[in-house]
């Protein structure tokens, strides 16, 4: 089966010279959920921004059989739905309904159809009562769901979520896990939260300084790299003798 | 400095509404050509920033503090034309949501702060050719001085009774606020340069003759306003009496009254000439902007 995402030898350098991605190879198959792990600045977010053409590096990025470039940008962006880390940056319209309808309207739907699609997506995430609310009035969890609805309404084949548990309390995280579990799309989840990753992903990749250094079953990857950033492993336990 | 409703006489607020609508309309047309719609979120967010920034206190001594107005800062970072639009939007939201400034008087406030204030504020920057501290300071200073003085003139012409003492203290207050604005703008621009030099526009690249002319006009308007207010407030009030005190003459044009009026003092004639001249400069600039704008699109 052809992968829905195929990345070969991806390299990207920022304007100030930092090599953010250094020869990344990756593939994602339909229905798979993969966790993207790694420290801050290791290239995770830069990597996902290459997938829908927001950033363009060197190498090959193929989404659903289409190379990612300017000509295919519109099509690729309806195949990949991206939920960003900061929901306030994603919910930029005055009301939830208008924001969720943004995608379909850009895809060329008529206003009435866009509104219908938006309502259905909001129902899917359990936010159908918040149609006319301003984003300012929503909680962090509700904002995340509304952002997800805004992406689902474009009927993508792949979902990318960048640190989706940021600002969410445990109940909201649980709610998100249940919601994502039901969705059939292939998912790429960038996260620091290993428990969240384990709850959803079967496979994980680990980024380090712009290179993808590990790709395998999630338990293995986490076990292998947990010592990198696990606080327990860092042994910060207080004791009467070792108080700072 | 935000003029509320029912302070300006009808000829004054109506004329300024008309002038502002044309000035802002012209700017919108320019901006639609040079700025893609994708820039609008940035401008909106910058507007929210200025709004929020007006809440931050800058200690100036003796327990008082000043606040940023923002016209010059916006001009130096996002450019003069976008700055006009952003300031207009800020003033409109202040008028409607915060009732800070009148709705009918919005034209006057937009003219003072969003048009003249921004143009005068960007002028030193455009002229100097580089982002020197002096240019930035002068921008902030001229921006607030011009808008404050014009507001005062408009109130006086409308016949708002202001004893000399109040006029002089207002003029003094505007001068002090202008100095504060200059200092704050410099402080923020310097801090911005340290964070990311790209935030501050390089005037050399965005420099164009039109902006320098318009900016100069703004400075002249504001400066003349300042001088008139500080030296001849009575003359302006007398002028106002001829123009628009009683409700019955509200819907006649100011010019009709000039012809009919008895000008006893030479001062009054001079003040009249000064004001007419200012309005003419404004009209010429607006026409000039339109002509230059058309030529550029060819």
């Amino acid at each position, binding site marked *: 089966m052809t992968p829905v995402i195929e990345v070969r030898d991806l390299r990207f350098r920022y304007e100030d010279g930092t090599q953010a991605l250094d020869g990344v190879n990756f593939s994602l198959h339909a229905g798979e959920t993969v966790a993207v792990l790694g420290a801050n600045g290791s290239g995770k977010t830069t990597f996902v921004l290459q997938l829908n053409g927001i950033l363009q590096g060197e190498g090959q990025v193929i989404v659903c059989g289409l190379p990612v470039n300017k000509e295919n940008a519109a099509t690729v962006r309806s195949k990949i739905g991206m939920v960003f880390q900061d929901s306030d940056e994603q919910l930029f319209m005055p009301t939830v309904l208008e924001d969720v309808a943004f995608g379909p309207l850009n895809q060329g739907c008529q206003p009435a159809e866009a509104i219908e699609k938006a309502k259905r997506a909001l129902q899917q995430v359990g936010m159908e009562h918040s149609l006319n609310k301003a984003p300012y009035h929503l909680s962090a969890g509700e904002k995340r769901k509304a952002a997800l609805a805004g992406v689902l309404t474009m009927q993508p084949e792949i979902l990318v979520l960048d640190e989706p548990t940021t600002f969410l309390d445990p109940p909201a995280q649980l709610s998100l896990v249940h919601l994502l579990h039901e969705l059939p799309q292939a998912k790429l989840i960038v996260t620091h939260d290993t428990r969240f990753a384990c709850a959803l992903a079967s496979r994980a990749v680990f980024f380090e300084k712009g290179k993808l250094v590990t790709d395998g079953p999630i338990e293995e990857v986490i076990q292998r790299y947990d010592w990198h950033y696990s606080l327990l492993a860092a042994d910060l336990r207080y004791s009467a003798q070792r108080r700072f | 400095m935000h003029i*509320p409703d029912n302070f300006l006489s009808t000829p004054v607020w109506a004329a300024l509404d008309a002038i502002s609508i044309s000035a802002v309309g012209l700017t919108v047309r320019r901006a639609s050509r040079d700025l893609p719609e994708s820039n609008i979120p940035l401008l909106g967010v910058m507007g929210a920033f200025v*709004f929020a920034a007006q809440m931050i206190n800058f200690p*100036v001594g003796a327990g008082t503090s000043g606040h940023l107005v923002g016209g010059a800062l916006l001009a130096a970072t996002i450019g003069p034309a976008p700055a006009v639009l952003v300031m207009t939007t800020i003033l409109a939201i202040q008028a409607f949501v915060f009732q800070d400034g009148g*709705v009918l008087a919005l034209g006057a406030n937009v003219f003072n702060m969003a048009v003249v204030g921004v143009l005068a504020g960007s002028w030193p920057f455009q002229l100097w050719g580089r982002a020197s501290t002096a240019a930035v300071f002068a921008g902030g200073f001229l921006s607030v001085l011009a808008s404050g003085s014009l507001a005062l003139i408009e109130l006086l012409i409308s016949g708002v009774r202001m004893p000399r003492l109040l006029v002089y203290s207002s003029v003094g207050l505007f001068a002090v606020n202008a100095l504060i604005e200059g200092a704050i703008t410099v402080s*923020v621009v310097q801090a911005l340069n340290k964070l990311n030099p790209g935030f501050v526009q390089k005037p050399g690249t965005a420099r164009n003759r039109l902006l320098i002319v318009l900016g100069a006009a703004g400075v002249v308007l504001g400066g003349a306003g300042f001088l008139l207010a500080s030296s001849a407030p009575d003359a302006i009030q007398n002028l106002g009496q001829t123009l628009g005190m009683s409700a019955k003459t509200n819907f006649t044009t100011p010019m009709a009254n000039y012809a009919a009026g008895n000008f006893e003092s030479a001062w009054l004639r001079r003040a009249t000439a000064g004001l007419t001249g200012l309005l003419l400069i404004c009209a010429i600039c607006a026409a000039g902007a339109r002509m230059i704008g058309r030529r550029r699109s060819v």
Partner: protein
Amino acid sequence: MHHVIVDQWSQGKSPLHARDPRAKIFVLLVFLVVLATTTPDAGVTLIIDAAVLVSGILLAGLPLMGLLLRAATILPFSLTFGLITWLAGDLWRAIALVEKSYLSTVAVLLLVGTTPLPRLLRGLEALGTPRVLVLLAQFLYRYLFVISEQAQHVRVAAVCRAGGSSEHRRGRFRAAGGALAVLFARSYYRAEGIYRSMLARGFGGHFVLLNPLRFGALDGGFAAALVALLVMARIT
């Protein structure tokens, strides 16, 4: 904060809230012009205008005392000028100045208290306001709350670090400038994030907006009746 309260009021439900924003804007403008052109001695006109406003507030279900108190922010300014005008010998003009400026403020507050700002902006656009300005205002308002909160935090942080003595005034001044620069930078990067979200959802260079405004017979009747009342009160 003021805009938070007004925003809450505007989310209410009442016959006045339900009216098309274009009708309400039009009526407001007529009201303001009528008020502005009312001569100082026309006391009855002013009473009728005030009555219209009070009935509006009650019909909209807004807190009467709360709204009247919020409008009182204009009073320091207008009372000062009123006092000066009175001392200059023109009592009627002074009273009219204070009354009229207060009523204007109440009228504007009534409009925004019964119309959520995004809807008001749709109305303004439908009445001819350039799209650029409407979109600008929409984004400004959307992020006003968020960035104001950030500004509060930045302000508190600056105060916590302030020296207090006048020798440190220059330092505090510079710190405030730095705080503003940080706020600027955060706002700028936020705008970049917004742009990326727009791109990710297929933004093609032009905002396509929903236009849910529908001007009905009720709106027409409302506008016509009020305009007639106000103009009659002014003329007679």
